[in-house]
């Protein structure tokens, strides 16, 4: 009898707790649906909080979303054209680094949560995966952490899409220019050793680099792809060094970038040009290279004398507790400021916001910003570590550009 009663109580307890969970879920939904007399602007996003993409998303994307929401809400919210001021409410999902998951999450944000605006996920592939949905539901798509040469095509196909990080060819042609100058000045020889990760970013960049380097008359002495799981680069660096190339280029993701740096130091391989992929512009790179990163080159960079950028970096450090990277972070933050200003000018009508983003001029952390054909073009293509800062060196004719210092000094 006694056991029976406990079984019944247990079942009852289970039942009530199930109702409780359901009630909480229902309450949560109604709360975000109370849209008639709006008390907040809902912003949704799905980013990789777990899985292989989490490291990149946690560096470049998520902190900037958090920083921006924090800034806006501290100031009391976004001021709409009708004079009202609404704070931002966030609906956030983890896409678990799965492309199917990010698509499902964005669909859910659009149809179930009915958020006012959707912020993009991290990564080129993921942004392409959600682009058709964003266009279908009419949400402006501020593709921040996505490098693609096809942006002009995509803008035609998905007219609500905006691209903030340029294309692979932009970065590789800037690099090729630097190499040509150094070669013509007699600083480096004509040979290039190039490796790339066999995944989105690496494939795009290396495909863009090959024709650029050939057109520049450089000889590609070593050109190999490696799987993303690779953690040991001893052999690859040996082979690259054996070609006698003065320029080493790696289109790599952060774990590879870090491992390549450590291995190059161990093997005392310090070619005159040492160019790495994603991760070399992370603040943590200074620790990884034991402070010996002088002369290492990569994508991105900042103008150390730009006050707006310095203020942004200080704010990021203060609110998030760590510094932003030297490449994508500031671009993503600028895209959010543009979204905010567009909403302030035209309200919550998504079509009008898209139009404003496309044609308007904005005051952002990058200065006065205007998109060209829905693309941001004021981007630093190449940077180099100089005196503890990752200084932008290309395009060299843009105001604030530093000059490349080659050859790179040794690791010691």
């Amino acid at each position, binding site marked *: 009898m006694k056991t029976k009663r406990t079984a019944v109580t247990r079942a009852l307890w289970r039942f009530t707790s199930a109702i409780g969970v359901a009630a909480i879920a229902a309450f949560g939904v109604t709360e975000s649906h109370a849209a008639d007399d709006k008390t907040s602007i809902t912003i949704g996003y799905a980013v*990789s*909080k*777990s*899985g*292989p993409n*989490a*490291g990149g*998303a*946690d*560096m470049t994307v998520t902190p900037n979303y958090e920083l921006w929401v924090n800034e806006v809400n501290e100031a009391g919210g976004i001021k709409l054209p009708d004079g009202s001021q609404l704070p931002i409410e966030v609906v956030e999902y983890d896409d678990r*680094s799965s492309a199917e998951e990010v698509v499902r999450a964005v669909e859910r944000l659009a149809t179930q949560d009915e958020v006012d605006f959707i912020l993009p996920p991290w990564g080129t592939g993921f942004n392409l995966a959600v682009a058709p949905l964003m266009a279908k539901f009419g949400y402006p798509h501020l593709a921040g952490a996505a490098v693609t040469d096809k942006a002009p095509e995509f803008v035609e196909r998905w007219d609500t899409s905006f691209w903030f990080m340029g294309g692979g060819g932009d970065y590789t042609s800037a690099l090729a220019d630097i190499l040509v100058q150094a070669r013509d000045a007699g600083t480096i020889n004509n040979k290039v050793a190039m*490796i790339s990760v*066999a995944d989105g970013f690496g494939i795009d960049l290396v495909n863009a680099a090959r024709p650029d380097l050939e057109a520049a008359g450089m000889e590609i002495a070593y050109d*190999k*792809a*490696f*799987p993303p*799981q*690779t*953690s*040991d680069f*001893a*052999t*690859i660096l*040996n*082979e690259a060094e054996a070609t006698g190339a003065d320029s080493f280029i790696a289109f790599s993701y*952060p*774990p590879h970038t*870090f*491992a390549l740096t*450590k*291995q190059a*130091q*161990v*093997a*005392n391989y310090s070619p005159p040009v040492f160019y790495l992929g994603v*991760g070399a512009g*992370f603040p*943590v790179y200074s*620790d*990884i*290279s*034991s402070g010996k990163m002088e002369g290492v080159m990569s994508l991105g960079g900042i103008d150390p004398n730009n006050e707006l950028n310095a203020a942004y970096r200080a704010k990021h450090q203060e609110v998030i507790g760590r510094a932003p990277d030297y490449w994508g972070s500031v671009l993503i933050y600028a895209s959010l400021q543009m979204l905010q200003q567009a909403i302030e000018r035209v309200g919550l009508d998504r079509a009008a916001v898209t139009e404003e983003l496309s044609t308007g001029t904005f005051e952002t952390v990058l200065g006065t910003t205007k998109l060209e054909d829905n693309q941001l073009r004021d981007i630093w293509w190449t940077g180099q570590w100089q005196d503890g800062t990752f200084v932008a060196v290309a395009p060299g004719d843009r105001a604030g550009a530093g000059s490349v210092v080659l050859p790179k000094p040794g690791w010691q």
Partner: protein
Amino acid sequence: MFEHIVNGLVLGGTYALIAMGLTMQYGIARIMNLAFGDTIIVACFGTYLLVSAFALSPLLALLILVPGAFVFSYAVFLALMQPLVARAPNREALEVDSILVTFGLLFVIQGILLVIFGGAYTSYSYLNVGVNVLGTTVSANRLLAFVMALVFGGALMFVLFRTRWGMMLRAVELAPESAPLYGIDVDRVARYAFAVGGALAASGGVVVSMYQTFTATAGVVFTMKALIVVILGGKGSLIGALIAGIVLGIVETLVAAYIDPGLTLAATYAVFLAILLFRPTGLFGSAA
């Protein structure tokens, strides 16, 4: 050629070190621990914390984390695995149940790490200097992993084949049904084997953290690699894990040097397939 063999040996040392723990857990305790790689990651973060916050040497971290992992794994076995062992009708059922439970454990550990450390890439440098080994420069930290694999492998082998306790472990591995007839407490032996496996995972984690970048969610990569090595070597066989790990390291290095770095993964699985075709129980496995 010779330098590639040295590099391969050193790379294989890492594989062997992490696989030996799993072979203890899977081969002897019969727990297919999918959270194995996450134990390694916990040790990575533990080392990182001790190094960055308390300025301890990673080698001292070994002295703290390895016993810590032993106790932790022992507790995990008591709390989560013991009920499964008690109710499982046979070994196969236990393997399936343990896969499900450790799959859950994997997410718990990952979640806790994400809350504490976030999803960012974590890395520090220690012993990142070149050491000349017979004319080839290898990094000291990877060499340390290789030496530790040999030392731990050797020590455990000695225990297994030269002590009474080791004999009990082997008895449980070979004939868990008959072992109780000789007065061996199979559960107790399994508990210790699981805990020793966890301690080995932690020692691997400490060394790996010195040269590899890790994130809170990178554990599955280690689990997969360790699982391949364990199955190649024969589950439960320490010498198998040691040799299979080193063979994989050398194969990967040679393929990267002479064929294409893009084919290292393919080469790994080709070796895996070839060996399993001819020896389904692995290099040193006994027929199950």
